[in-house]
């Protein structure tokens, strides 16, 4: 049973067809790379899956349940979480409070579980706090630091912590390496690897195939909103159409 199934998804903005009859699926435990040059429609696909955009046509299934026109929060509750390409955070809340939001249940009147253990766990899993301080320690920077003080890599960790705080069965990562220094790229890849080793299913968007080859099990190549190729990283890399598209689009 596929965890996520996208069927002939179509979305256009005015005259521009951003996603054209795209179908793909994600199996549980897999890491799938959604690769394509800039403007290929990768982020649009994520926005369609998350309910931020509504498709013109096509259907999206999560655990065999159709989620096509669901609102975002319901999709998140069902088990899909997304990390944005440009960090989205709460500038006046501390790092800890930023992560805490996803641990707060979506209920106004029902008294639910304390969000603290979950928040601490998410912070620890993403390495937001240095190992010598656990996040429940008041000395931990999480408690006092605002997200604006974090480096790019730290912001990515914060977003990952907030995303995994919703207990996602499927994690969507939108260009997780964009804007990071080489050292930070290594750190974040290790983090993604460790999530994969814990059994986390991930779909990862990137325009750079080389950077994600090592991380992914399968690649779906998009070009002008259409699926160009699909397969293991090796298969895709050998595909002449892919090579042409990438060379035409400025290379890998």
């Amino acid at each position, binding site marked *: 049973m596929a965890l996520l199934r996208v069927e002939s998804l179509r979305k256009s903005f005015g005259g521009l067809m951003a996603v054209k009859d795209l179908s793909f699926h994600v199996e549980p435990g897999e890491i799938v790379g959604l690769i394509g040059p800039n403007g290929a429609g990768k982020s649009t696909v994520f926005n369609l899956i*998350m309910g*931020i955009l509504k498709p013109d046509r096509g259907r999206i299934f999560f655990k065999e349940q159709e989620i096509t026109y669901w*609102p*975002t*929060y*319901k999709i*998140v*509750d069902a088990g899909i*979480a*997304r990390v*944005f390409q440009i960090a*989205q*955070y*709460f*500038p*006046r*809340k501390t790092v800890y*409070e930023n992560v*805490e*939001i*996803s641990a*707060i249940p*979506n209920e*106004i009147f029902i008294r639910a579980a304390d*969000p603290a253990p979950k928040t601490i766990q998410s912070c620890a899993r993403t390495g937001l706090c240095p190992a010598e301080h656990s996040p429940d320690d008041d000395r931990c920077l999480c408690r006092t630091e605002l997200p604006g003080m974090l480096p790019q890599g730290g912001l990515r960790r914060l977003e990952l912590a*907030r*995303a995994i*705080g*919703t207990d996602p069965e499927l994690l969507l990562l939108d260009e997780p390496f964009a804007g990071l220094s080489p050292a930070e790229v290594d750190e974040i890849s290790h983090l993604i690897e460790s999530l994969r080793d814990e059994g986390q299913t991930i779909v990862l968007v990137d325009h750079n195939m080389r950077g994600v080859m090592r991380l992914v099990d399968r690649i779906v190549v998009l070009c002008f909103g259409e699926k160009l190729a699909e397969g293991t990283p090796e298969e895709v890399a050998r595909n002449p159409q892919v090579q042409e598209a990438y060379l035409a689009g400025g290379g890998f």
Partner: protein
Amino acid sequence: MSLRAIKFGILGITVIVVAALGPFLPAKWMTTLTYAQLFAIYAMGWDILSGMTGQISFGHIFFVAVAGYTTGLLNLYMKWPIWATIPLGVVMAVVAGLLFSVPALRLRGPYFSLITLILPLAAARLVIILADWTGGELGKFGVAALCPFSDFKANQYCNYYSLWGLMTGIGLFLVWLSSSRVGKILEAIRENEEATEAAGINTAKYKIFAFAVSACVVGLGGTFSVHINESVFFNSLLSLTTSIEMIVASVIGGMGTIVGALWGGFLVRGGEQVIREVAQLKVPVGSEGLALSFLERWATFIFFALLLVLLFFARQGLLPLLLGLVKKREIRGG
């Protein structure tokens, strides 16, 4: 000390001071502070919606009007007792809040604010069109009084402490709510709505809830105002100035802090009166002394000029300024 404890502490001290002041107040000041308390209720009500979620409403006086006219007119024409009409008025305000919130929340930023501005304008026209019943701009007298004493002073005390009770209750509830999980989410919506949705939160539900609470609080104030004035009075129930002043009070005190809005309410309603009092004084200069009575005419102007200066130096408002100073000292002290 947690922020919540600090807020409860400041609220506690403020309401105890207001309660203790009562017996020492000259009649004029008692009236001023009675209305300052009423206004503080409005400001806190505005703050729980607009201050916390960042959806700036210019039209909160509309909910005052819905609740106020409901209780006033039902009491006046149907002769229903106020213990029945006050809750009805509040319910009507909440219903109005809920009805309005659904379409309003589809709008973002300035569009939302503009729509909220139209609401009291439309309501004002309606009140004037229906002047036979509502009394139009002149209002209608003869509404039952909140306090049934024949003695003026007893009545004044009763009004003062009734509003004190209401203000204290609302203050406690709103400080608790604003620092609860619901408050954290309302703040998150203000700071980044998309990220809040992405964290699995149904932001619309929370905004509608905040709307209902806000309309309820402001409506409660409106019903008390009608029965204290013993009239449905256009200028107190549908004044756009009051609507704007709610925003000023909350901004001066510190948006989204509730306690700050309460302070702001006292500052806006009490500050002007302070300048008028100063105008009564004589400065002991020369043999005659220098009368400051020329200030009287300028009181409102001076007051607003001072508010501008205050906002220039403390953009986030008084309470955050104060908390910032405390925090700085804590850090310096290690």
